[in-house]
């Protein structure tokens, strides 16, 4: 029977001791431990969140980087293409200019040659005229060495002049 009848003395001591124990532990024990654990777990959560954020930022930076690289590559291709176009243009232009110049030079040379030839022809003509004049003179002189011949010649000349005036 004594096992299931609570003893008043034990109840007294239990209440007292448990109250002291509770007071001490509630003041110096459990709140410190669980508070620190809470703080630490919050800090760890923070750290994890920060790490995730950093990772996200890093991946966005990588995206940005690859996009920039892509842009740069496209720009490079564009510039190269432009350069090659320009080069082609310049070469084409130079070629056409050279052809034009060559044509000009050629035509200048041609006209000069033509002028030279005319001059030469004229010279030859003049020379031929003076030559023929000299020949004619010599022939005339030889033919007109006698008086009769001179007369006959003058007479023919006169006839000729007459005919010419008649005609006119």
């Amino acid at each position: 029977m004594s096992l299931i009848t609570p003893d008043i003395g034990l109840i007294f001591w239990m209440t007292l001791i448990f109250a002291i124990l509770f007071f001490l532990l509630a003041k110096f024990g459990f709140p410190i431990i669980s508070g620190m654990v809470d703080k630490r777990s919050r800090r760890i959560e923070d750290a994890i969140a920060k790490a995730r954020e950093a990772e996200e930022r890093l991946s966005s930076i990588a995206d940005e980087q690859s996009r920039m690289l892509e842009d740069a590559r496209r720009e490079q291709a564009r510039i190269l293409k432009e350069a090659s176009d320009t080069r082609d243009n310049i070469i084409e232009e130079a070629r056409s200019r050279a052809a034009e110049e060559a044509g000009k030079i050629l035509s200048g040379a041609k006209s000069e040659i033509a002028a030279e030839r005319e001059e030469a022809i004229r010279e030859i003509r003049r020379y031929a005229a003076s030559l023929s004049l000299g020949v004619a003179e010599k022939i005339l002189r030889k033919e007109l060495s006698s008086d009769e011949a001179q007369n006959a010649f003058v007479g023919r000349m006169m006839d000729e002049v007459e005919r010419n005036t008649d005609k006119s």
Partner: protein
Amino acid sequence: MKGARRIFAVIVAVLLPLTLGAAELDMREYLLGHVGDSYGWHIATVRGEAVSVHLPVIVRSSVSGWHVFSSGHIEEGGSWEGFRLATGDEPHSGKLVEETPEGLLRPFDISITRNVLGLMVNSSLVLLIILFGARWYRRHNAMEEAPRGFAGIVEMMVTMVEDDIIKPCVGAEYKKYSPYLLTAFFFIFISNLMGIVPFFPGGANVTGNIAITLCLALFTFLAVNIFGSRHYYKDIFWPDVPVFLKAFPLMPIIETVGVFTKPFSLMVRLFANILAGHMMILGVLSVIFITATMGAFLNGSLTVIAVLFGVFMDILECLVAFLQAYVFTMLSSVFIGLSRQEPESVHDDNKL
């Protein structure tokens, strides 16, 4: 193999007629002496001499006032200042009584008995363990490192109880209750374990004593009912049931009884489990002493069995020690959580 069997048979034949000159074991005395309370702390009997720790007896008699004396004076049927232990057939058997002209009187008794000393030892142990765990945080930066070793175990236990039991069962306002629940957990756990330790200063049956569990249950009862929400009290006295169940106050009566049966169940559960565990171990070990007069062979073989069972029971009791602390804390948390509950239907009505 055959030779071994023959040797065994010879040993049995030699041992069977042998008996030890052991006294008959008084089972009732043996069991109650171990699981009950006593004024002195009997440690062992060496060559017929009792080795025990004498504890102070503190009593206040309604006739002769306060008395403080050593429990050594009242051992072995002794009497001191008119006080002696009541014997088997008198009222208050085993307790201190005063012989007065009006007969035997039971004084107001707050002696430091074995259980009180055990209570002090266990509480000091809990205090030391927890304060040692808490001291680590003063010496280290808890933000940078986690405790290792003993402080790590303390932190793990505290965190386990708080995260697994208190937070989910109590709910949002768990911080207010967690020191009490943690204190109860560690007190019960350490006391249970100390109860299994078979020698001084362990072995006092603290948590298997109904006065201790009564106090613990009372503390939970107070924690539940002092801070109970309005909704909790409305559910007791005017629950949401058809009016005829309240007009004839059937439901309020049931609910009011429930308020007291909850802590009562806490009290009995812890008390009965620990007491039963002690009884089982003592019963198993008593086989050794009961069979001491039955011959060396029977005694020897049953001793082996008893020791094996004793080891098994001790290990089981280690599990029970934790389990009962866990269950007490969890049920206390659940009862507190129920008393802090806010009505959900009211919020829904407001929304609509």
